[in-house]
């Protein structure tokens, strides 16, 4: 926790004669800058590169591999290129709102990282609103997207912006109801509180807590995919129909921010899912050293979240885009009733077994691993049968 850390620094006299509030402010800005410049920007940038490489492997191509070893610096080159591009704001556009939109989008994205935990000690602020705060802050992105779509005064951008608004607000409801199933179990909204009630073993994760949370996990995943404008729900920027959707008129540095937010959001989606359902940073207690445990926890959390990022890339490379009527049907006619039933079911489960029902947890864990195992077996079977010349090494 940042506050206890700063308190200890002040007690040690590191800040000298500086008043306590000023010392707090310095510490907060330093920690914030470290998180934003040290993690948020890098994870978004690296994700764009990883995504291009993953798609390339899936499509039997090579992908970017020229800038730096294996092309790892491609994202920096892309960012620099975008910074140096001439920017064209159409004369017909509303220039003030046009320039405002990247600010709103970036605020909605970066502020979510305040409550995202990395380990038991590494969190900027353990807000008591926790998960509710994250979902509401990421919803701010849709305001920026709508401003961008409207201010461009371009038909493609307008259609993209309105579609994004309709899609994100619709999927907000199943997502929130499924997130609340976990809150029913924990009784707290704080992200650290939710993680502390889970364990490192899969049988202690909330995804396997009851059949309802098991289904709730998939509902949350689909709803968050739609909220992040990811394939198969990327209608707002469907490039085959809408040119580039709400970013059609954007270029240069302002385009860079929409790009950054979209790919950075993947990590936030992964982090929300891991926090709520997959045990967060919980790692087996193998060392008594606090620093060692925190490093292990941070690694666990980031690896788990990044597995979801890679899963989302895989989905994007595999599935076609849905139509707008299918999108709305999925949300209102399937996910919403399912999440209603889930919510009431979990409430009933918590009422009957307030401490959890061990037998159900173990059966569900076995079932979950069985599903993953069967899936991998089928993948291996088809690979063998097609006789494809496939190498799984990402560097080849």
């Amino acid at each position, binding site marked *: 926790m940042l*506050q206890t850390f700063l308190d200890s620094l002040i007690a040690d006299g590191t800040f000298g004669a500086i008043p306590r509030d000023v010392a707090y402010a310095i510490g907060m*800005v330093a*920690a*914030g800058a470290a998180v934003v410049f040290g993690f948020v920007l890098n994870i978004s940038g690296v994700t764009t590169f990883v995504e291009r490489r993953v798609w390339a492997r899936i499509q039997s191509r090579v992908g970017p591999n020229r800038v730096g070893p294996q092309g790892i610096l491609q994202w920096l080159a892309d960012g620099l290129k975008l*910074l*140096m*591009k*001439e*920017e*064209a704001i*159409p*004369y*017909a556009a509303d220039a003030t709102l046009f*320039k405002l939109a990247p*600010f709103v989008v*970036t*605020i909605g994205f*970066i*502020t979510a*990282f305040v409550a995202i935990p990395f380990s038991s000690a590494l969190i*900027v*602020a*353990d*807000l*008591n609103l926790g998960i509710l705060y994250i979902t509401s802050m990421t919803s701010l992105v849709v305001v920026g997207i709508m401003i961008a779509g*409207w201010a*461009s*005064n*371009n*038909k*493609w951008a*307008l259609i993209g912006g*309105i579609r994004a608004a*309709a899609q994100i*607000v*619709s999927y*907000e*409801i199943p997502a*929130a109801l499924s997130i*609340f199933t976990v*809150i*029913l179990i924990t*009784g707290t*909204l704080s992200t650290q509180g939710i993680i502390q009630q889970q364990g490192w073993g899969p049988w202690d994760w909330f995804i396997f807590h009851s059949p309802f949370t098991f289904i709730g996990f998939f509902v949350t995943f689909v709803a968050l995919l739609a909220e992040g404008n990811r394939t198969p729900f990327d209608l707002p920027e469907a490039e085959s129909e809408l*040119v580039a959707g709400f970013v*059609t008129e954007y270029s*240069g*540095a302002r385009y860079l921010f929409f790009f950054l937010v979209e790919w950075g959001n993947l990590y936030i989606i992964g982090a929300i899912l891991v926090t709520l359902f997959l045990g967060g940073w919980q790692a087996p207690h193998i060392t008594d050293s606090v620093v060692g445990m925190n490093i292990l926890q941070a690694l666990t959390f980031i690896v788990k979240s990044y597995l979801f990022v890679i899963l989302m890339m895989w989905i994007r490379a595999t599935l076609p885009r849905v139509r707008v*009527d299918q999108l709305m*049907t999925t949300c*209102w*006619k399937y996910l*919403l*009733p399912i999440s209603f039933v889930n*919510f*009431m079911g979990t*409430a009933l489960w*918590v*009422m009957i077994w*307030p401490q959890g029902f061990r037998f159900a947890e173990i059966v569900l864990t076995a079932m979950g691993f069985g599903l993953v195992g069967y899936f991998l077996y089928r993948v291996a079977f088809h690979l063998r049968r097609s006789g494809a010349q496939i190498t799984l090494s990402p560097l080849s």
Partner: protein
Amino acid sequence: MFFQFANVLVFVALAMGLVALMTGLSWLLRPHNPEPGKMSTYECGEPPTGGAWINFNIRFYLVALVFVIFDVEVAFIAPVTVVFRDWVEQGNGLFAYGEIAIFLAILFVGLIYVWAKGDLEWVKRVGSSDEDSPDMREAA
């Protein structure tokens, strides 16, 4: 708690500073050669016909209306979910469950009503005419 939420303020300032810094840096680095053709609205290379600030498909407003109702529901259910566990531990679980059930049932009836009225269909047939309604043919 003030400390925790001050962090949010710091992050908002950092986000705004980041955007301002990058666009400012880009302003220094990039060329400026505006000309009417470049600054015209993009419409696949054709000269744009009319503006885009027009009346839009009514479907989206219906989605917004339904959303507002259910989002208010989500906002009201949030405090109840947080205290539900405490109520169960105090032995008032059935009472709390009943209240949540009644609240959600009323909303569920609303969902069924909207569904039955056909407002969840993206392409809604109006009356008995075979022709598609005009607002449907506009890009949706």
